């Protein structure tokens, strides 16, 4: 905070929520309630958001993230299960991969405001666009995963199914982690500033989900790798989440309030419970299944929590102004020049 002068500009430092005009989109009405402002003083335009919050639909997009993760890790799980001859785990993984991919695609298409134009995604391959890249990950993955699942279910073309299963597995992890880039490559502060954490968070969350699915659907005889994967995923997820929130500093306030807080807390509870359950109860079918469900739920709740936190962050002008001011200040200090050529030191007149 280099410049705010609370004594002189008291009204700028507070946000009067009543003064924030609701976005005219009915879809987004009510988000203002979540709008929270940190204690820091800053100036803004009537407390209004500076950037636009994502217009992505809820639950479509968080579910897509979850299903992508689930499918991605499950595909590898399935391929390894095939290689290590764990048929129920193989079957569970293949079906989860296909289900996740197909379900994810459905949600992705449904999220479009012009769903009939889904195929426009295939006009281009833009390495600068995580969604474009993701489309080109999801498309072959979904094809392979679906083909594999088909062979699994029908029993036809088993050998082909093994090949496509490996192909899906080769792509799967990317499907699980690219969504982190999808979120991080936006101006939403709490997403972008966490761009080093988000891939790990999403990858770990995918592991927990995939492992969880394995626990749910595979027999106790086959489910040990799934349990290990899930426990490891949950552990990493919990750890990286802590680190992320710590590193986010003031921005992490969006995880400490509102629905995001509830979701993240529930997520943690589920992950811990699921991981413990997997650790001690893997060998009992019902406890394995319950643990798996908890892990999957934990994974999904994380995605919902991250999504909600992003919306709150985007709607909070402090999340834009305060860090950017700080960045400017640091830049000025390091260059030791009176700011940019065209920008005078602020409030020189005060």
């Amino acid at each position, binding site marked *: 905070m280099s410049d705010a002068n609370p004594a002189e500009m008291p009204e700028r430092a507070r946000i009067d929520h009543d003064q924030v005009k609701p976005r005219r989109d009915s879809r987004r009405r009510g988000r203002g309630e979540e709008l929270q402002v940190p204690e820091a003083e800053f100036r803004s335009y009537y407390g209004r958001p500076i950037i636009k919050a994502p217009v992505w639909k809820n639950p479509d997009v968080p579910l897509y993230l979850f299903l992508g993760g689930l499918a991605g890790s499950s595909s590898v799980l399935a391929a390894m299960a095939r290689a290590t001859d764990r048929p129920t785990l193989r079957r569970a993984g293949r079906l989860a991969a296909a289900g996740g991919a197909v379900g994810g695609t459905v949600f992705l298409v449904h999220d479009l405001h012009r769903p009939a134009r889904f195929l426009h995604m295939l*006009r*281009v*391959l*833009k*390495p*600068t666009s995580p969604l*474009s890249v993701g489309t080109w990950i999801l498309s072959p993955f979904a094809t392979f995963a679906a083909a594999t699942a088909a062979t699994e279910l029908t029993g036809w073309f088993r050998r082909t199914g093994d090949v496509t299963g490996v192909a899906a597995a080769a792509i799967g992890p990317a499907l699980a982690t690219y969504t982190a880039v999808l979120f991080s490559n936006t101006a939403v502060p709490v997403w972008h500033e966490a761009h080093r954490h988000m891939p790990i968070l999403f990858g770990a969350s995918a592991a927990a989900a995939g492992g969880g699915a394995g626990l749910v659907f595979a027999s106790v005889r086959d489910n040990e790798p799934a349990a290990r994967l899930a426990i490891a995923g949950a552990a990493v997820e919990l750890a990286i989440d802590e680190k992320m929130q710590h590193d986010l500093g003031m921005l992490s306030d969006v995880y400490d309030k509102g629905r995001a807080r509830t979701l993240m807390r529930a997520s943690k509870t589920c992950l811990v419970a699921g991981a413990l359950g997997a650790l001690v109860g893997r060998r009992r079918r019902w406890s394995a299944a319950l643990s798996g469900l908890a892990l999957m739920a934990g994974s999904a709740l994380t995605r919902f929590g991250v999504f909600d936190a992003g919306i709150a962050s985007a709607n909070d002008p402090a999340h834009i102004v305060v860090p950017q001011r700080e960045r400017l200040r640091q830049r000025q200090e390091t260059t030791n020049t009176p700011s940019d050529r065209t920008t005078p030191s602020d409030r020189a007149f005060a």
Partner: protein
Amino acid sequence: MGARTWLGEWPMFRQATGPDPLGRGAAVQSPRTKALEARTRDADEVVKSVCPYCAVGCGQNIYVRDGRITQVEGDPDSPVSRGRLCPKGSASTSLVTSPTRVTTVRYRRPYGTEWEDLDLDTAVDMIADRVIDARRRGWQDTDDEGRVLRRTLGFSSLGGATLDNEENYLIKKLFMALGAIQVENQARI
């Protein structure tokens, strides 16, 4: 469309083969975008006009296509306004094409509770009758002291500040011939 053409139209192909590998410009331009042109380009005529709002008198160009106004914007030739318009003047296209504009005669009979339809010619005829009647009833040949007045107070008129000079001229001329002195407009307001 041959396969080759189709392929050539596929932006990804153009990305791979052209100077825009990242797909951020030339490669992804759609045929429709490429064909885009200003809608004023195909105007049948550009009619010189003047903004109808305030008295600054900004020049306007009216773009007409197939008997419809497609665009109204400032006339850069005007030394008054140099092509610029305020928000009201800029809304002139909306003004002249407004969907809520009333374009048929509406009639409310005495003590009526609703509008009714009326033929324009009939309406003007009825108004002419009423003018003649009110003129007669409000006629004053002389005042109390016997001085000649030659006038009627039977009806009056308000408005003219947004009308053309030629229109105001006819109003004044007709009312004077009718002996109707009560002609007023916004200039008094």
